[in-house]
C-alpha cells in the first residue's frame, strides 16, 4: 500500500472519477502507441488498480506505476484490498465501488465475462490496438467471445526445481527422476524425494494432461477428465505421490525442498526468489517427459483486467487505465526486467523471440510452451473442487485413481 | 422536628390482590419515638417505605407537619432511613458513606462535609474507622456507621427498619441505648420498625401494633401491655406470651362464672366485674400472663386450678414452669419455686390480672368503648 488516503479519518468515501469532463473519445489510443516520448497527456485521468501481489512483485509494480504517473500525469490509485481478491470483486463491482482495473491470472476472464446483470468486465477492443504484440496464447487468454477484457504481461506455470548439490544432472524423463528420488526418499529420517502440492489441480495438470487428454475440452465445452489419456496421466502422477511428504499442503511440501531435505520440487516462478536464498545451487528445468510426452501443465497468463467500472467512467479514466496497461505490457524494458527479477515469463512476442532471458526463466518459458493456458470458460470453475477432492482421495489411498476421475467428472457434469 | 401524619394510608400490591397496608391512620408527634411491631408480613416495612417515599401509596396521604408529601420524591423528603442490612455503600469508605447524604442534599464543600462527619464520628466512637471500607467493619461498627450516615444529614424524620436484627444480644442492648440517646439528643421524630418484643417495649414513647396491614393498637408500652385491646395484641406483646384458655361464661346478670372443663377451671367473678361489663352466656378466651400466675407447690385445694408440672426451665433469674393446663401454658416463678416435672401443683391468679376476650371478635370485653377507641388513635 503506497498511496492511501490520509488514513485516520475514514468518514469520506473514496472519490471516484473527478476528472473534468473534457472531450471524450479524443482517441487516447494513438497516444499510447508512442508513450515513451510523450511527457503527459492533455486530459489526465484517475483510475483505481487492485492488486494482490507478493512483496517483491508489489514493490516493482509500485515503481512502475509511479513512473507511469510522472510520465503521463494520470493518477493511479493502486490498492491492495487483501483477502481473496475475487470475493472482494464479487461484492464491490455490483455495488459500483470496484476498481477500474485489477491484476490477476487470466483464468477469471470467462467467469466474469459472462456476468450480465450487472456486468463485471469492460470490452476494451476499441481502446486497445496493441493486442497483436502478444503471443497467440496470450491473446486468446484475455479475450472472451471476441471481446478484449484485459492485457497480458506474463505467464506462469510450474516447472521442476532441483538441488544441484543432490542431483548431478537434471532428469529428462520421469524414470530418471524417480531413480534419483529413490536414492533420497526416506521419510523416517526426514528425507523425501520430492516437494509437490499434489492435490492442487493447477500443479498436477501437467502430468494428467501429458498423454494429450484435456481436463476440460474448451472447444467442445466438455469435461474429459475421465478420458483414457487423462487416466494414463494420472497413473504417471501417482508414481510421484509416493515421494512427497504426507501433507500435500503447499507449505508442508515446499519446506522439504527448502530445507534441503528433498532433491526436487515442482513449483512456480514465484518461489525462485525465496528458494535461491535457501538453496545454494538451485536449478530449474522443464517437467520430465512421461513416455516421451511433455507434461502439458496449465499456465496462467498474468493480466491487467478492465473492469465494468469503466463502462460508466469518464474517458480520461479509461485512458488512464488502458494507458497504464498498454504501457506496462508492451514496454520491453519492463518485461525484460520483470523476467530477470521476478521470474515473469514474457508474453510479448518481441521479447519472447529475441529476448535475453535467464536460464531459469527460459526453463519456465519452455514449460509454458509445452503447456496449455487454463481454460477461461466459466464452466471451468466447476472443475477445481471435484478434481481437488479426487486427487485428495487418491493421495490418501481412499480411492482408485480411475474411479476417482470418473466420479469427479460425473460430479462436474452434474454441477454444470 | 416534624409531625408525621399517616392519613388512611393504603398500599396494595399485585393489582389489589395483596393489601399490605390497610388504611392506616397514625400521627407521630414532633420529636416522638414510635415503634412499630407486628408479625412478619404485616406491612411494617411497607408503611415505613411509604413514609420514606420509596413506595407510592395506593391511596391516602403522608404529611410532614402540614405539608402533604405523598407525591414528593424520596430524595426531596427530609427523612433518613436505617436499613436492616445497613445498606452501606460497599465501595465507599466510612467517610464516603457518611458524607454522601450531605454531598447530595447540601452545598457544603468537601472540607465542611469532612468536618461535620468527623465530628459525628467522634460522637459515635467511630472516628478511627473513617477510612475503612464497610467490609472491614464488624456488625456493630457497621450499625454505627449506618446510624451516623442517617444522622449526619440532620433529617427531620428518622426511619428504622429492624436496624438491630442482625446483631447479637449484647450489642443489640448497647445499640438500643445509643439510638435512643441520639434520637433524644437531636429531637428527631422517629419511626422504628422491629419484631423484637423488648425493643418495641423499651424504646418507644409509643408503640404501634400492626397485624395483617391493619393498625391494632397505639399507646404507651405499659398501657398496651396492661390493656391490650384484643387477643392478638395480648398474645403478641409480652414474652413469654400470655396464656390463653378457652372458657365458657355462665352468667345470670348479677353473678358470673368463668368455666373451663378441660382445664378444671371455675372462676367466680366479683360483682364489680360483672356489673361493669356486658357478659353473655357465650364462649370467651381467658388470658393470663405468666408472671401473674402463682405456683403453689403443695396445693391445698383452694387454688384457682390444679395442674401438673410438665417441665421446669430455670433461666437463672426466674424459672419457667410449663403446666399441663393446656398446650404451652407457662408460669413464670421466682428461682426458689422449683417443682419437679410431674409434680401436682396448684395454680393461683387474681381477678385483676385476667383478660377476657370475645371468642369471635377477639376484643377485650373488660375494656370500655372509649378505651378501645383511644387505643388506635
Amino acid at each position, binding site marked *: 500500500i*503506497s498511496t*492511501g488516503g490520509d488514513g485516520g479519518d*475514514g468518514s469520506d468515501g473514496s472519490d471516484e472519477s473527478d476528472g473534468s469532463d473534457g472531450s471524450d473519445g479524443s482517441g487516447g489510443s494513438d497516444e499510447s502507441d508512442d508513450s515513451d516520448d510523450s511527457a503527459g497527456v492533455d486530459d489526465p485521468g484517475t483510475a483505481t488498480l487492485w492488486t494482490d501481489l507478493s512483496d517483491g512483485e508489489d514493490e516493482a509494480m509500485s515503481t512502475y506505476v509511479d513512473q507511469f504517473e510522472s510520465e503521463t500525469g494520470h493518477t493511479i490509485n493502486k490498492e491492495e484490498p487483501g*483477502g481473496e481478491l475475487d470475493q472482494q470483486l464479487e461484492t464491490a463491482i455490483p455495488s459500483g465501488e470496484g476498481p477500474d482495473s485489477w491484476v490477476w491470472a487470466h483464468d477469471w476472464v470467462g467467469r466474469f465475462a459472462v456476468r450480465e446483470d450487472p456486468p463485471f468486465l469492460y470490452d476494451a477492443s476499441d481502446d486497445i490496438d496493441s493486442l497483436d504484440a502478444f503471443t497467440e496464447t496470450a491473446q486468446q487468454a484475455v479475450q472472451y467471445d471476441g471481446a478484449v477484457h484485459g492485457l497480458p504481461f506474463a505467464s506462469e506455470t510450474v516447472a521442476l526445481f532441483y538441488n544441484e548439490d543432490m542431483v548431478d544432472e537434471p532428469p529428462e524423463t520421469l524414470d530418471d527422476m524417480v531413480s534419483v528420488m529413490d536414492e533420497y526418499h526416506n521419510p523416517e529420517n526426514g528425507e523425501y524425494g520430492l516437494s509437490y502440492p499434489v492435490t492442487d489441480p493447477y500443479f498436477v495438470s501437467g502430468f494428467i494432461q501429458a498423454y494429450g487428454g484435456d481436463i476440460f475440452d474448451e472447444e467442445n465445452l466438455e469435461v474429459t477428465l475421465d478420458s483414457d489419456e487423462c487416466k494414463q496421466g494420472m497413473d504417471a502422477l501417482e508414481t510421484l505421490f509416493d515421494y512427497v511428504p504426507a501433507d500435500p499442503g503447499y*507449505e508442508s511440501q*515446499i519446506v522439504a525442498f527448502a530445507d534441503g531435505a528433498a532433491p526436487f520440487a515442482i513449483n512456480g516462478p514465484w518461489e525462485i526468489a525465496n528458494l535461491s536464498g535457501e538453496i545454494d545451487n538451485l536449478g530449474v528445468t522443464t517437467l520430465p517427459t512421461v513416455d516421451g510426452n511433455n507434461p502439458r501443465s496449465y499456465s496462467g497468463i498474468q493480466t491487467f483486467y478492465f473492469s465494468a467500472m469503466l463502462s460508466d467512467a469518464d474517458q480520461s479514466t479509461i485512458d488512464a487505465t488502458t494507458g497504464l496497461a498498454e504501457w506496462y505490457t508492451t514496454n520491453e524494458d519492463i518485461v525484460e526486467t520483470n523476467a530477470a527479477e521476478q521470474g515473469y515469463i514474457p508474453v510479448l512476442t518481441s521479447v519472447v523471440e529475441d529476448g535475453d532471458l535467464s536460464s531459469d526463466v527460459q526453463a519456465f518459458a519452455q514449460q509454458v510452451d509445452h503447456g496449455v493456458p487454463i481454460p477461461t470458460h466459466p464452466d471451468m470453475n466447476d472443475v477445481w473442487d471435484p478434481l481437488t477432492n479426487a486427487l485428495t482421495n487418491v493421495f490418501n489411498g481412499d480411492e482408485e485413481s480411475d474411479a476417482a476421475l470418473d466420479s469427479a467428472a460425473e460430479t462436474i457434469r452434474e454441477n454444470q | 422536628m416534624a409531625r408525621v401524619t399517616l392519613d388512611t394510608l393504603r398500599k396494595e400490591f399485585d393489582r389489589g390482590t395483596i393489601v399490605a397496608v390497610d388504611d392506616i391512620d397514625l400521627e407521630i408527634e414532633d420529636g416522638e419515638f414510635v415503634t412499630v411491631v407486628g408479625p412478619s408480613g404485616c406491612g411494617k416495612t411497607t408503611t415505613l417505605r411509604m413514609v420514606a417515599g420509596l413506595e407510592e401509596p395506593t391511596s391516602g396521604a403522608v404529611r410532614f407537619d402540614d405539608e402533604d408529601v405523598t407525591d414528593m420524591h424520596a430524595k426531596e423528603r427530609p427523612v433518613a432511613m436505617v*436499613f436492616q442490612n445497613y445498606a452501606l*455503600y*460497599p465501595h465507599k469508605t466510612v467517610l464516603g458513606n457518611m458524607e454522601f447524604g450531605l454531598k447530595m442534599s447540601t452545598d457544603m464543600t468537601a472540607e465542611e462535609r469532612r468536618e461535620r462527619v468527623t465530628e459525628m464520628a467522634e460522637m459515635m466512637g467511630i472516628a478511627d474507622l473513617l477510612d475503612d471500607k464497610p467490609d472491614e467493619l464488624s456488625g456493630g461498627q457497621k450499625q454505627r456507621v449506618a446510624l451516623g450516615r442517617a444522622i449526619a444529614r440532620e433529617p427531620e424524620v428518622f426511619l428504622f427498619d429492624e436496624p438491630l436484627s442482625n446483631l447479637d444480644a449484647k450489642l443489640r442492648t448497647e445499640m438500643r441505648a445509643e439510638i435512643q440517646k441520639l434520637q433524644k439528643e437531636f429531637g428527631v421524630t422517629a419511626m422504628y420498625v422491629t419484631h423484637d418484643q423488648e425493643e418495641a417495649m423499651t424504646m418507644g414513647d409509643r408503640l404501634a401494633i400492626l397485624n395483617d396491614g391493619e393498625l391494632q393498637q397505639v399507646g404507651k408500652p405499659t398501657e398496651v401491655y396492661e390493656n391490650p385491646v384484643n387477643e392478638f395484641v395480648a398474645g403478641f406483646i409480652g414474652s413469654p406470651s400470655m396464656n390463653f384458655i378457652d372458657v365458657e361464661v355462665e352468667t345470670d346478670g348479677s353473678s358470673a362464672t368463668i368455666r373451663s372443663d378441660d382445664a378444671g377451671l371455675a372462676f367466680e367473678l366479683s360483682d364489680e366485674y360483672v356489673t361493669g361489663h356486658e357478659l353473655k352466656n357465650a364462649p370467651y378466651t381467658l388470658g393470663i400472663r405468666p408472671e401473674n400466675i402463682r405456683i403453689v407447690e403443695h396445693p391445698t385445694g383452694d387454688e384457682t386450678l390444679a395442674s401438673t408440672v410438665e417441665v421446669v426451665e430455670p433461666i437463672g433469674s426466674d424459672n419457667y414452669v410449663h403446666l399441663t393446663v393446656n398446650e404451652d401454658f407457662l408460669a413464670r416463678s421466682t428461682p426458689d419455686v422449683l417443682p419437679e416435672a410431674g409434680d401436682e401443683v396448684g395454680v393461683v391468679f387474681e381477678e385483676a390480672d385476667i383478660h377476657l376476650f370475645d371468642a369471635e371478635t377477639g376484643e377485650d370485653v373488660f375494656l370500655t368503648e372509649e378505651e378501645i377507641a383511644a387505643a388506635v388513635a
Partner: protein
Amino acid sequence: MSALQSALALISAKLIAFVTAPKRFVVSLRRTVYDLRTGRRTPWDVSKSVLMTLFGLAMVLLLLFPLFWIFTASLAEGTRLFNTSGIFPDPSTYNLGAYRWVVFESDFFFVDGDWGYPQLVLGGGSGLVSFRWVGTETGPGALFNSLYLVSVTIVAGFAMIVPAAYAFSRRSFVGRKRILYGYVLFTQIGAGLSIATLVALYSLFSSYGLTNNLFILGLFYAAGAIPFNTWLLKTYMDNIPISYEEAAMVDGASFLDTIREIIIPLTKPGLAVVLIFVWLAGWNEFIIAQTLLSPENYPLSVELYNLATEGRFSTPWTRFAAFANLFALPVAIVYFAAQRSVEDGLSFGGMEG
C-alpha cells in the same frame, strides 16, 4: 477518564504483584521447609501439594503450548512455519527481525512503518484545535483505525448496553420480558451470522452509501454485542441489592447521582467483563471489515488476515506470528490482569435462584 486511570492502576498493581510473585514463592518455600523440619507438616502432606501444583503447571503449559510454539516461530529466520528437523526452530537463529518488520515496515503503526508524531494545530480543521501527523509521509496505520473502530464500538456499545441492562434489572415496563427473551435467543446467533449475512450486509451498507465507514462499522459491532452483553450485565446487576439505591435516594441523591455514585461503581466487575467482550467484538473481527472497508481504513485484524493470505500459496509465518503477537498482546495483558474481575463478572451463581 477516571475509569481509564483506575484500569491502568489495576493493571500496574497486577503486574507488580506478578513481578513480586517469585519473592513470595521463596518465602512460602522457606516456610514449608521450616514446617517440615519442625514437623508441623508431614512430608506426605507437602509432596501432595507439590504434586498437585506440578500437575496444574503441566496442564497450563500444555494448554498454552500452541501459543508458545508460534512465539518461537516468530523469532525464527525466514518465512516458513515448519522445519523438517524438529518442532522448534533452531534457537541459534532466533532474532527479532519479524518484530522489527512489523514495527518499521508493516502498516501496523504507520503505513509502511513510516513513523510520525501528532502535532496540535491551532485553529485548523473544524474545531479550535485539531491535530495532524507530522514526520510521516504515508500517515497513521492500521492500529489507529483499529483504535478508532474499537472506540466507536465501546462508546456506542456502552451507551446502549448499560442503560438497557439497568432498565431490565430494575424497572418493569411493557415488553420487558419479551425483549429480554429475544435478546437471550439472539445471544449466540450473532457469532456465525457475519458470514451468513455478509452479502446481505454489504448490499445494505452500500445501498445507504455506508461502506468504507469506520464509524458505521463500529456501530455494527456494537449492535452485534448488544444482546449477550446486555443480558450479562443485567444478570450481574440483579445480584446488587436494591437497598443501596434506596439508601442513596433517601440520602437525597437524584437518579443520575445514584447511577454515577452507586450503580456504576458497584457494577465494575460486570462492566469490566462487558468492556473486554465489546472490545474483542470490534478488535478481532475481520471478515466484514474487509468486505466493507477500503485498504486505507483497514484495521489490524484485516491486516493480520491479509498477512496470512499474502503469499500466493503460503503465509509469511514469522511476520504473521510477530504481527499477531503484537496485536493480541494488549488484550492478553488485560485478560491476565483482569482475571479476578472476569471471574466475578462472569459469575452466574446468582442465577441459581
